[in-house]
């Protein structure tokens, strides 16, 4: 018993580089040897799916991409899934970006899903309006007059020459907003300045760490559901029946979370043993 206690004590004060190594292995190995854990959608993800599915065919959907390469693994899979869902239901998709990096990633997503998978036509089925600087001012500008803010799209074409921009002058001309957000400016700015004042329904997908900040808006009904990080992306992929990067990352995330919990438990067991010993002596 003393031997086990001593071993646990030794392990509970291990150099953090061993922890880094174990975490690295717990992420890499499931990527090569997938476990195939079943993915069950949560109510908040289901709400996003149901809201988008209920939109009438041919609705005008604004998708806003505010994420960068660092948050691409979490947000990009959900953007791809949402675009697949939107194009499958034959909606018209308008893409804006509040982050400069977002434009690169939005372009990549539209090319992959819109152009390559669905064979859709740029300017008739989807359009990338691009990035504009100004943070909340861009959101307010879209609410009041989108044509004042966007005179050309991301490819340099005049907005007046894009067929699907006919009849789109302000935010209220859209039927739905999906914000794929990794921080500021993002979901909260869209809720505060656009969706809530105009009653245009919106849903969002955010990084896991941002879910806390957005959840009060979901609970209040101002945001219709939320895709929470990579698990949310994987759940949405399961709902639309097209597994992707989100699904493939879930095994690794599951094992990594389990390993972290085990480390925490180990650390606490060591702490309790040490505390009992010091009480004894």
């Amino acid at each position, binding site marked *: 018993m003393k031997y086990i206690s001593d071993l646990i004590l030794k392990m509970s004060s291990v150099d953090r580089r061993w922890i880094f190594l174990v975490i690295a292995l717990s992420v890499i190995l499931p990527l090569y040897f997938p476990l195939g854990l*079943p993915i069950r959608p949560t109510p908040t993800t289901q709400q996003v799916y149901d809201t988008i599915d209920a939109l009438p065919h041919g609705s005008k959907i604004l998708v806003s991409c505010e994420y960068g390469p660092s948050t691409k693994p979490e947000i990009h899979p959900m953007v791809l899934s949402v675009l697949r869902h939107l194009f499958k239901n034959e909606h018209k998709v308008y893409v804006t970006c509040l982050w400069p990096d977002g434009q690169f990633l939005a372009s990549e997503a539209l090319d992959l899903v819109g152009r390559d998978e669905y064979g859709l036509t740029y300017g008739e089925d989807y359009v990338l309006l691009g990035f504009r600087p100004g943070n909340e001012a861009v959101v307010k500008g879209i609410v009041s007059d989108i044509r004042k803010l966007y005179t050309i799209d991301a490819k340099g074409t005049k907005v007046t020459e894009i067929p699907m921009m006919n009849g789109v002058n302000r935010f209220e001309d859209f039927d739905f907003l999906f914000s794929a957000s990794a921080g500021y400016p993002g979901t909260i700015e869209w809720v505060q300045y656009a969706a809530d004042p105009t009653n245009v329904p919106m849903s969002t997908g955010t990084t*896991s760490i941002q879910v806390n900040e957005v959840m009060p808006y979901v609970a209040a009904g101002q945001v219709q559901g939320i895709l929470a990080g990579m698990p949310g992306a994987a759940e949405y992929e399961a709902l639309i029946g097209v597994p992707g990067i989100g699904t493939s990352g879930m095994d690794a995330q599951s094992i990594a979370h389990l390993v972290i919990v085990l480390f925490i438990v180990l650390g606490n067991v060591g702490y309790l043993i040490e505390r009992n010993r010091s009480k004894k002596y």
Partner: protein
Amino acid sequence: MLWKRHIPILIVAVIGSLTLFGWFIDEPNIKAFVNDDATQWFDILASFAIFLGGFNLLKMQLQKVLRKKQGWQYSLFAIGGFILAIIAGFFYKGNPDVAWGTHVTADGTLFKWIFMYIFAPLGATMFALLAFFVASASYRAFRIRNFEATLLLVSGIIIMIGRVPLGSSISSWFILYLLVLIGGIAINSVFKNKQYTAIFVSVGIIIVTSAGSSMGWPLDQPGIFYLPHLQEWIYMNPNVAGTRSIMMGIGLGIFATSIRYILGIEKSYIGE
């Protein structure tokens, strides 16, 4: 005194009041100022201010190289990266068929190549460090020193496991058995009587097994012990309540700080 003190305070008071009260005024020019112009003025200032920052950065790195300070070789990378970005942004497109401006996102340009093959991998790598740091920070800091710390730890574990597919594969009955065992440990530490512990654990196991058998061992029933349901409840209830109250407190703090600036009570921006 007038230029260094009174005029800056007056500017802050006037612009701050106009931006605050402009929200209540239904006059097109004021609305345009509050909604568009005020924030755009700031963006224009910030865009020109980047020159200050850029020159400061170049100056510091060049000084390091010229004076051969410790680690001066790394400064060569900083200066080289700076010059490469300027060239890719303003002088060399790489794809002659693309117009200036759209060359930053068009395929085949040097700028896009830098974004895809240098900037994106570096950003992703730095973000990935968080996974390791979260593990080491949690391992070091999460100790059940008191009731609140224990509560935090338990809810953290429930959310971490409940959020991922692994959590939805863990049956409620497994959690019930775990609770019986933890209860046994607690009984043993309080009463220090092996008989009581054995009775408690045996009765607990019998009850859980009987209930499970009679219900057919459903994975997600009883729902209160199913980790995904539990984590959803924690997210939507105590978490939202705590977040809302912190948001209100922060909002009040922002309001009070801003009012102090508008009223001229806080004058730290002029060094007072």
